[in-house]
């Protein structure tokens, strides 16, 4: 008995992953949208409902319901959980929800706009540290920030909350969405973020549409979308991001995608390693997948049934649509593209529809990375 009894290894190096790697599916993490309400009213947001919306409030899962579902998720093996929204700190029982998840042995992350952070939150997070708190930065100046959030006073509240978080020693990451209302300030936003975190800064330039299908809001989102050329310009202007894209482009653009023979709709990790629980108790394979055939009401069933029986049926969904099978399904640019069945449904109402805007963005990115050869082989743009 001369071997070591205990190993202290970084989790990514644990032999747990060898076991997981041999499996086709195993629950590792889940996103928990504890509310869809938000105190901001961001132009580009895919989910926000006004903070005082009583109907939305009534539909929200209670602490007990969340507790019960999270217990099942832990039983199924989940190790990570992301608390998100809406703005999760709007919930008065945020602390109870957070602590309940931590006490189950979950590694909990939080997405927030930071405007509602209080000293009480800080005490809680210092004593029971989250894995990370990710804060969205909509602008580096008050004018730009509030042009996006459409709420007076939100910039001051954001900087106050961010300072509280940063000074507390809680691990904070910053991120941004790039939209027409703030794109000209993106270099300043990047500088603002890099001055305040040792970690990387990331921005997402591709907006997606509302989960509730609200047409007026969708029009607003479309009007905030950047052109493919502008997206490429912004990505080129961020040396770290462009260097990473260049470095990884052999994996990002892989001609082997063209060899896919099956006609399954879903080829991502959603429902294989993770799920999203929406504020009203619906299980989604990912936060964007809202097609009625792809969601399961956990108020009427159990997570175990959903995970073991319902999700595999969704993952087995196929398409015989010629355009899909010959185009998006076998596109080597898939990792540069926002296209997926979930977003196709949000854009076009069909899981296998082509989305011109995403396609143009992906091809512009590929071209910027020097992959004109693939473009000419594809020959469809």
């Amino acid at each position, binding site marked *: 008995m001369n071997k070591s009894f205990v*190993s202290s290894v970084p989790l990514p190096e644990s032999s747990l992953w060898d076991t997981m790697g041999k499996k086709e599916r195993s629950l590792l993490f889940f996103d928990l949208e504890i509310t869809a309400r938000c105190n901001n009213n961001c132009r580009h947001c895919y989910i926000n409902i006004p903070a005082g919306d009583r109907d939305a409030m009534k539909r929200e899962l209670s602490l007990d319901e969340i507790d019960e579902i999270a217990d099942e998720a832990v039983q199924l093996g989940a*190790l990570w959980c992301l608390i998100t929204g809406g703005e999760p700190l709007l919930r008065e029982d945020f602390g109870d929800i957070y602590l309940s998840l931590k006490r189950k042995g979950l590694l909990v992350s939080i997405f927030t706009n930071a405007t509602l952070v209080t000293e009480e939150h800080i005490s809680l997070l*210092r004593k029971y540290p989250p894995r990370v708190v990710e804060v969205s930065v909509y602008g580096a100046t008050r004018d730009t920030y509030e042009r996006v959030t459409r709420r007076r006073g939100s910039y001051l509240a954001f900087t106050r909350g961010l300072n509280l978080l940063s000074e507390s020693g809680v691990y904070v990451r910053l991120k941004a969405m790039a939209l027409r209302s703030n794109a000209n300030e993106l270099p300043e936003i990047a500088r603002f973020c890099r001055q305040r975190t040792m970690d990387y800064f990331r921005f997402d330039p591709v907006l997606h549409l509302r989960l509730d299908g609200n047409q007026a809001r969708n029009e607003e989102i479309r009007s905030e979308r950047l052109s493919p050329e502008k997206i490429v310009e912004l990505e080129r202007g961020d040396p770290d991001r462009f260097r990473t894209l260049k470095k990884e482009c052999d994996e990002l653009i892989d001609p082997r995608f063209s060899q896919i023979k099956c006609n399954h709709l879903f080829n991502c990790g959603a429902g294989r390693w993770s799920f999203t629980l929406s504020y009203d108790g619906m299980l989604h394979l990912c936060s964007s997948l809202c097609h009625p055939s792809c969601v399961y009401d956990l108020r009427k069933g159990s997570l175990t049934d959903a995970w073991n029986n319902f999700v595999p049926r969704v993952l087995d969904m196929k398409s015989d649509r010629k355009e899909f099978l010959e185009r998006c399904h076998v596109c080597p640019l898939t990792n540069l593209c926002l296209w997926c069945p979930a977003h196709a449904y949000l854009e076009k109402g069909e899981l296998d529809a082509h989305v011109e805007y995403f396609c143009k963005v992906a091809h512009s990115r590929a071209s910027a990375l020097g992959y004109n050869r693939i473009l000419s082989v594809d020959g469809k743009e």
Partner: protein
Amino acid sequence: MNTEVKMDSIYAPSEDVVVREIEGEVIIVPLVAGVGNMEDEIFTLNETGRAILAKLDGKSRLKDVLESLSEEFESPAGEIDRDVIGFVGELFKRNILVEASEG
């Protein structure tokens, strides 16, 4: 803080950690600040570590745990002591194990 391991002491997992089993792996997840370093230093135990931890139940003295492990692993008395004490010491030092009061 005295981190010396004592044979007459009773040890148990701290309330500041959550001990989980995923796919047969024991994973010790820190609950509060200062225990491990979150993701970078989460403990995973091998099979033997797991057998030892199961016996550190807040009821048995360490010397009785050693005796029981000797029997279980069919090792002569004393042979495994150094390894087990090292294991308990490491977990104790990291606040994963605490000294439980008697009775």
